[in-house]
Each structure stands twice: as structure tokens, then as C-alpha cells.
């Protein structure tokens, strides 16, 4: 018998007596007898914490791909960046961890101000004037961005570059079943989106264009090309961006994106098998009243002191119900606070330094790998800054299994990401043999050299 309940038997008896009851069962008299669960739940009884911890530790031990056993070269929106002790200590403070949505702002200034600072940082990264308080993850932020774009343009046709992460495109398609958006995937050639000609594309005039910067294959694309098309069509430009790469590459907002979304995991959140992560969302002021989810604004209290509160609440589900801009309520606030702390730790120079180190490692490893027999480029001469795709002589899943035996999580198999072999981003043959490799500032030259030697063996017949 294990739990966290304070009630003594005497107190329970006294409380029941206060209610005029004699047994706890009577509390549930409003539940029809026919529906009651006879004999209670059918699984194991409770166990003390140490027993449960031992069980979970066994499960954790069965994960070969843990970072202390396999050196991580996998990316695809989830990266093995440095999260220093100071960030973990501050982000783990129980005031941030065990509070909830700031419905009573007078006792929630801590979270509110941290989110205000987060919004400022995200807006600056994106090159846009306003950012929200977070969404679930990159893919869900993209769904919201497309909803905003359709509402703003008044057209449901959405051109989505296949350079957008395949999982994110899959999530977009799932939710389009409800909203009725018509998604049209635009192919890549050597890592660059080939937008339809000026005579128009399939599905009529698009209301929204979506492009990746960098795209999921790691390539930087000419967003100006997408912007020019948007201007011609009167369409909204949505860019998916990486917040670390943003340390050295142009902001999508600078290219003219109307909405910038991204996966915020690289900002202080660990790999955690995919969650909880952090959806980043920034947009132009023209669209602020269509912004999904929470937004923190600065104001004053009755004594004129600076104070923070969630604002433009008339957009939100608890006020507007079926006419809300989004159904988001609980988001990823703790990860947003964590990102603010991480960016505070990095500072202006630190963010640029991390991005630069990723780019250096990426270049060093890519050049060395392309020297190997059995390895060839997959995205032509497209510029890459934090990850890159290669074509291996043997199928990528096989390479990954072999590299695991050498102590590496070698990367991601494009066929796994795409969930098939032909999605327009790469050819079917490149999909089955394509390996996506990410290099962060945590990878040493010795690790990169060892990786090259291991891959040299892994790509042979």
C-alpha cells in the first residue's frame, strides 16, 4: 500500500460523520450500481517507490540508444545540445514546475515574466515582432501557422515544400482532415524546393506557402523565391526554422516570412525520446489577433508597478469557444521558461558560437565522409549548417544497426522519417539509402574521426 494521502483512519471517520455517512462507498451513491466496477481495477496493487524505480531503471537500461552508450549523430528536429547544470537547476525549480496556467496573475508573475522574456527572445530569433507563449511541438506549431495563413488569406490551398520535416507534413495532413485545407506537396531537387512555374500550380491559387529554413535535409534554401511567389499570389509565407542555426543564418522574418515556426527542443530541453518539446511560433503584428494559444503582455498593477498578464484573451477557447483561433489550452510553458533560461545562459555571443561550432563540425564530418567509397552526396551543393544527408552504398537502417555496434547512433534513416520511399523530397532509391547526420557542439574531433572510420566499415557490402 503506497500513496501520498494524508488522511488518517480517525480523520476519515470524522469527515464521513460530518457528512452524515458511515462508509466511503456511500460517496459514490450517485453512480448507478449497474455501472460500478465490481472488484476494483484489474492490475497490480501499489508498490513502494524504490520498487517502482528499480522497475523503471530496468526499462531505461534496455535502451541501447542512450546518450551515455551511443554517441549521438541523430537530428531531424531533435538535437544533442549542451544543457548545463545551471539551466537544469533553474528550470527544475518547483515554483516553475508545480504551478499551472497563470489564471491568477498576481501570484504568477514568475512564470509570466519568464514567458514574456521568452516571447522577446523567440521574436528576435525569428526576425518578427511577436511570438506566443509556446505550442506543443514543431509540428503542431506548423498546423497552427497554416490555420492562421488560411484564415488570413481566405484560401484553403496550401503549398507545402517537401523540405518540411516529413513528420510535420504528416501531422499537417492529419489535421487537414478536420479543417479541409488542401495540402499540395512541392518536390525538392538536390535539396531545393522546385516551386511551380508562374503559370500556377495544382489546386488553384495558393493561400499559404510553407518552406523549411533550413529544410529537413539540412539545406538552406532561397526563401526570397518563395516570398516572391507569395507576393504574386497574395499568399502567406510560413517558414519552419531551427533556433540554433538562427545564430548564424538569416532570420526567416528577414526573408519576409509572415509566420515562423520551429521546434524549440534545441533550446535547453533534452532529447527525452521526443517530448516534452516546445513549439515556437512568431508572426507579424498584422496577424496578432489570429495568434494561437497564450500571449503574455506587460501592463501595470493598481499601484502602477510593472506587471504581466495573459492578454488578447478574446482569441482563446475558454472565452470564444467554437469561434476561437485555436483549441490550445495547456501548452509547454515549462519548456518555454527553460528556453528563456538557456538563451540567457548562451547570450548573444554564446548562441552564435554554438551555431558556428555546429557548422564547423558539420563541414568537417561531411567532407571526411564524402572521401569514403560507398558514400555520396544527396543534396548536391546546397549549403548545410547543422546536418546533412548522405547516400550510403547499403540501406541506411543497416548502416545504423552496424554503427550501433561501434558505439554510434549514426543518424536517421530517411526511409524511417518518410515512412515510405517516395515523398518528393528525395528519390525512392535515395530514401532507402539516405542517412541524415547531425553534428552539434558536443561532438569532439576524436568522435568525428572515429565516426568516419566506423562508417567506412559500415557502408561496405
Amino acid at each position, binding site marked *: 500500500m503506497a500513496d501520498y*494521502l494524508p488522511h488518517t483512519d480517525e*480523520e476519515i471517520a470524522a*469527515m464521513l460523520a*460530518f457528512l452524515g455517512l458511515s462508509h*466511503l462507498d456511500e*460517496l*459514490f451513491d*450517485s453512480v448507478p450500481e449497474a*455501472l460500478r466496477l465490481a472488484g476494483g481495477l484489474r492490475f*497490480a496493487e501499489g508498490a513502494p517507490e524504490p520498487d*517502482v524505480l528499480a522497475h523503471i531503471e*530496468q*526499462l531505461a*537500461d534496455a*535502451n*541501447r540508444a542512450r*546518450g551515455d552508450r551511443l554517441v549521438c549523430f*541523430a537530428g531531424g528536429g531533435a538535437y544533442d545540445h549542451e544543457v548545463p547544470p*545551471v539551466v537544469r537547476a533553474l528550470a527544475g525549480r518547483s515554483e516553475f*514546475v508545480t*504551478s499551472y496556467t497563470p489564471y491568477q496573475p498576481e*501570484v504568477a508573475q514568475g512564470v509570466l515574466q519568464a514567458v*514574456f522574456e521568452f516571447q522577446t527572445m523567440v521574436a528576435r530569433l525569428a526576425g518578427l515582432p511577436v511570438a506566443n507563449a509556446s505550442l506543443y511541438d*514543431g509540428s503542431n506549431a506548423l498546423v497552427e501557422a497554416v*490555420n492562421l495563413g488560411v484564415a488570413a488569406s481566405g484560401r484553403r490551398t496550401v503549398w507545402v515544400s517537401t523540405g518540411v520535416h516529413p513528420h510535420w507534413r504528416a*501531422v499537417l495532413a492529419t489535421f487537414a482532415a478536420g479543417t479541409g485545407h488542401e495540402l499540395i506537396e512541392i518536390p525538392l531537387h538536390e535539396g531545393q524546393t522546385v516551386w511551380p512555374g508562374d503559370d500556377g500550380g495544382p489546386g488553384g491559387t495558393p493561400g499559404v506557402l510553407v518552406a523549411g529554413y533550413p529544410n529537413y535535409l539540412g539545406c538552406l534554401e*532561397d526563401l526570397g523565391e518563395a516570398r516572391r511567389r507569395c507576393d504574386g499570389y497574395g499568399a502567406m509565407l510560413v517558414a519552419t526554422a531551427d533556433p540554433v542555426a538562427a545564430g*548564424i543564418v*538569416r532570420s526567416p522574418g528577414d526573408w519576409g516570412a509572415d509566420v515562423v515556426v520551429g521546434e524549440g527542443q534545441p533550446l535547453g530541453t533534452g532529447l*527525452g*525520446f*521526443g517530448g*516534452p*518539446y516546445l513549439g515556437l511560433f512568431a508572426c507579424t503584428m498584422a496577424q496578432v489577433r489570429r495568434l494561437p494559444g497564450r500571449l503574455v*503582455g*506587460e501592463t501595470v498593477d*493598481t499601484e502602477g508597478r510593472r506587471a504581466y*498578464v495573459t492578454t488578447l484573451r478574446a482569441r482563446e477557447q475558454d472565452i*470564444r469557444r*467554437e469561434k476561437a483561433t485555436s*483549441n490550445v*489550452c495547456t*501548452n*509547454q510553458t*515549462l519548456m518555454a521558461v527553460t528556453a528563456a*533560461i538557456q538563451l*540567457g*545562459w548562451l*547570450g548573444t555571443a554564446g*548562441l552564435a*558560437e*554554438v551555431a*558556428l*561550432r555546429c*557548422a*564547423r*563540425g558539420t*563541414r568537417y564530418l561531411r567532407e571526411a565522409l564524402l572521401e569514403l567509397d560507398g558514400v555520396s552526396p544527396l543534396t548536391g551543393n546546397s*549549403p548545410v549548417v547543422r546536418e546533412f544527408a548522405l547516400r550510403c552504398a547499403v540501406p541506411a537502417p543497416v548502416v545504423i544497426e552496424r554503427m550501433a555496434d561501434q558505439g554510434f547512433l549514426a543518424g536517421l534513416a530517411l526511409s524511417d522519417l518518410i515512412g515510405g520511399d517516395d515523398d518528393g523530397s528525395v528519390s525512392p532509391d535515395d530514401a532507402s539509402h539516405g542517412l541524415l547526420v547531425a553534428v552539434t557542439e558536443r561532438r*569532439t574531433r576524436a568522435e568525428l574521426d572515429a565516426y568516419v572510420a566506423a562508417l567506412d566499415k559500415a557502408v561496405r557490402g
Partner: protein
Amino acid sequence: MTSETDAKQIADAAPRPAAGGRAASAPLLGRATEPTIFELSQPGRRSVQLLTTGVPEWPVDELVPVEHRRDVPVRLAEVSERDLVGHFTRLSHRQFSVDLGAYPLGSCTMKYNPKICDAVAVLPGLAAVHPGAPASLTQGWLSLLVELEEVLCAITGMAAATLQPAAGAAGELTGLLLMRAFHAANGEQRHRVIIPDSAHGTNPASVTLGGYEVTTVPSDERGCVDMGALREVLDTDVAGIMLTNPNTLGLFEEEIAEIAAAVHEVGGLLYYDGANLNAILGVVRPGDMGFDIVHMNLHKTFATPHGGGGPGAGPVAVSERLVDFLPGPRPVRRLGGVSEGNTFSPSEFAWVEPSRSIGRVHSWHGNALVLARALTYILVHGSDGLQRVAERAVLNANWLRVRLAGVFDVPFDRPCMHEVVLSASTLRKEHSVKALDVAKRLLEEGFHSPTVYFPLIVDEALMIEPTETESLQTLEALADALEAIVVEARSGDQSAWAAPRTTPVSRIDEARAARTLVATFDARR
């Protein structure tokens, strides 16, 4: 060593706290305004330290083509590590939390979050695993997810579940898309989803995003779905109904079996909003009530910390006939897989795409570390402990209901489940003190406020959910504080209008925040 007798004597001699367990956090909260981190910044100051890697140090202009290169660095704050720690620690002192004191915020289930779950969430074997690593290298994670799915299905009485949705509202939309796919597979296009007028705002918002129109049914005088009104709006155009049971008034929908039969009769599905699942753990299961789709809020019922507004997790469980539509890929235990003691066969668990899947709803596999925390909580409590959770939660809420019956109006004066909805209607009419004033005044007493002005169908609503982890002494202190506020108001003392005064800031000018929008530091005029 002290003997047990000695220890008892010492305990007896010690002064007893006036109201043991009373939260007294308000005086502890920081009152000085904290500058933003941007105002603490000094150019050139830094705290970052990175690993020595030995990678060649090419300059940026050899790495990024000029047309893609950032010409001005992203401006961030420049602070020392000491300043960073000071800033965020001071901010934390301006934040109420469950760890500080009682947080009876109705509908949010702000129970104590056991620390064992924090320990689980930082295990390197869970926390340092890349989500894209193949199943052969992540058997432990797949096993954990399958174990959680199985236990959630046992709790809800459903056949299978997806763990992908990141929060309750994400679960709702997933459920509506499941509804849509189910009807489409039967060659039907239905247009309406029924929602009671007491529903959470996320329900109607999700219905719209699911491509349906909302039909609202009123509550009857007992606070439950009006069966007559429901039958009037039911026809074959109805895709389904979304219900919270117990509902947002904290009342069990006693006619749920009749509702289920009537909705199923016209071919509709029943969606269970699990916001209030805490009330019925081990007592009654949504599956046994006739529900087809169930979302759970793991951050409510299974105590994963709310994080200041997330992360949560909103798994969706379904009945047998909807299993093939679940989001994919799903982690499954392979038939014939071998597991002996602690050793995993590398192929025992695998990712499988359901045959008629609606598709992915998350970038990866859901809020995985939240899921691990929830499993830990469930295993510690076990089948017996979860039932105790529900019993104590309902006991606490009813104790408050009876204790406060003469203090506030009780719109639906009968036994409640895990939360009680009171009303400050009389107080407002007779003394001009609103529910909002009561909420703000309560902050001064060191408690978080109840939810106010929800559900919408109750005038001046105060929705109190004490949860099972608060002691009788805390309930007494909370009730005493609420009663004192009412007595004060009845005596003509209008202090509540000016409340809160002891909190980090006093009442906030929310209209100004919206009127002169300043949502970033750069937008300050």
C-alpha cells in the same frame, strides 16, 4: 537514539500548529519588482562554457554563403551565471505553486506531484534517448509505453490507446478526427457534435477544428444533461457527443447509460473528456458507461507537474471498433516475442501503423517523459491506491461542500464528486463582493484561488477542487479563510475590492495589457 516513548513525549510537548498544514506562502513571495533579463544585461558579460572539441575553427564566412549569413547577431541578454541564477530564482519567488501551498483550482486537479517522478524523468536511459533511434535500440522505451497504454486501458475500460496527444485539447481533436474517420469508413458524413452547456471551452473549439458544428444541450435543474433536450437534437446527422463525467459542476451524470443508448441508437459515438477522471478511478470506468473515445489528462489525474501551463499529456483510448483508426505509429508488443526477466529480445516491441490510421498527431511519440512520470505514479499507487485517490478526492470535496454550505450559495445542493461549485451570487447582490473579489482576497491568505466564473451556467461561480493530497487541517484552514472573507464582506468591510495587497503585485490592469499591447521587451514604448 531516542526511544519511541521519548519521541512521543517530545511530540506531545511540542506546541501544535493552530491549523497544521496551512499554507502560508503569500508572505514568502517576492514583492520587489524584478527587472527583465534584458535590463540586467551588460555587453560583454557571459556565462556560457562549451566543451573543448578540437574541431577546426573555420570562420563563419567560410561556412555560410553570404546570402544566407546573418549580418547582425541575434541580440540576447548578456549576463553572468550568478546574475542568471539570481534573476530566475527571484522570479521563482514571485510564483505560487503546489509545492508552496493548497491550489484548489477547480477542473485542474492541482494535486501534489511526487518527487519520485522527477527522478524517473532524468534517468539517462530515458532522458538521453533520441526519438528517431530505431525500435531495436529503444526496446525499453517501447516497453514502457506499452505498459502505460495497457494500464490506462485497464483504468478506462477501453481496448487500446494512443499516447501521442500532448495535452487534453490535443486529445480532444484527435478523438474528433477518430470520430470523423469512423463515420467516413461507414460511408457517412455527419455534421454535428453535441456538447452540454457546462462543457470546457476546449470542447467546442476542438469540434470546430474537427470540421463539425457544435450543438449545445442545456443542463437540467439537477445540473445534468437534460435528457428531453438531448433527444430533441439527436438524429443521424450527429457524429457524437462530448461529455465530462462527473461534469464540470462536479456532479455525476446519473443517466449516462440512457444517454449512451440514445446516442448509439442514432449511430453516434460518445466522447469522454477525462478532465475529471480523478473522481472515479477504480469506481466506474468510461468504457463501462458506454463511451467509445476517452482522453485522459495525465497532468491532472496522474500527477505529472503542470509546469506553469504545460507540458501535459492527453492520451486517447478507444473501444475495439476504433482501434484501427488510432494515430500511428503505435508501440506494440509483438506476438511470440520473448521476454525473460530483465533481458529484452531486440524485437519484442515494434512500431506498427494501424490499418486505417488517421495519421500522426505529434512530431514524435508524444510527451514521452511525462508519460514515464505518469506510469511511475500509477505503479506506486497500483489498483488499490488509485481507488483511494478517488475516494479521498471526493471525501475532501464533499467535506468542503457541507462546511461552506452556509457561507456561499450552493447552486446544486447534493453530494458532489471531486469538486464542488459554489456561488457568490448572494454575496454580490447584498454586499457587492464578487467571486473575483473573493478569489483575490483569498490570495492574501496564502491559498491559490478556486476557478472563478466557470462553469458558465453558474452565476458568480467558485469552483473548488481540493484534491486528495490536502489534509483535513488544510481544508479547515481554507474553509476558515473563505468564511472570514464572507463575514468581513457582510460586515460592510470592503477590503476584498482592493485585494490582493500582500502578493508580488496588486490587481492587474488587464484592459491596458490588451489595449496597448506590449508582448515583447522590444515593444515597450
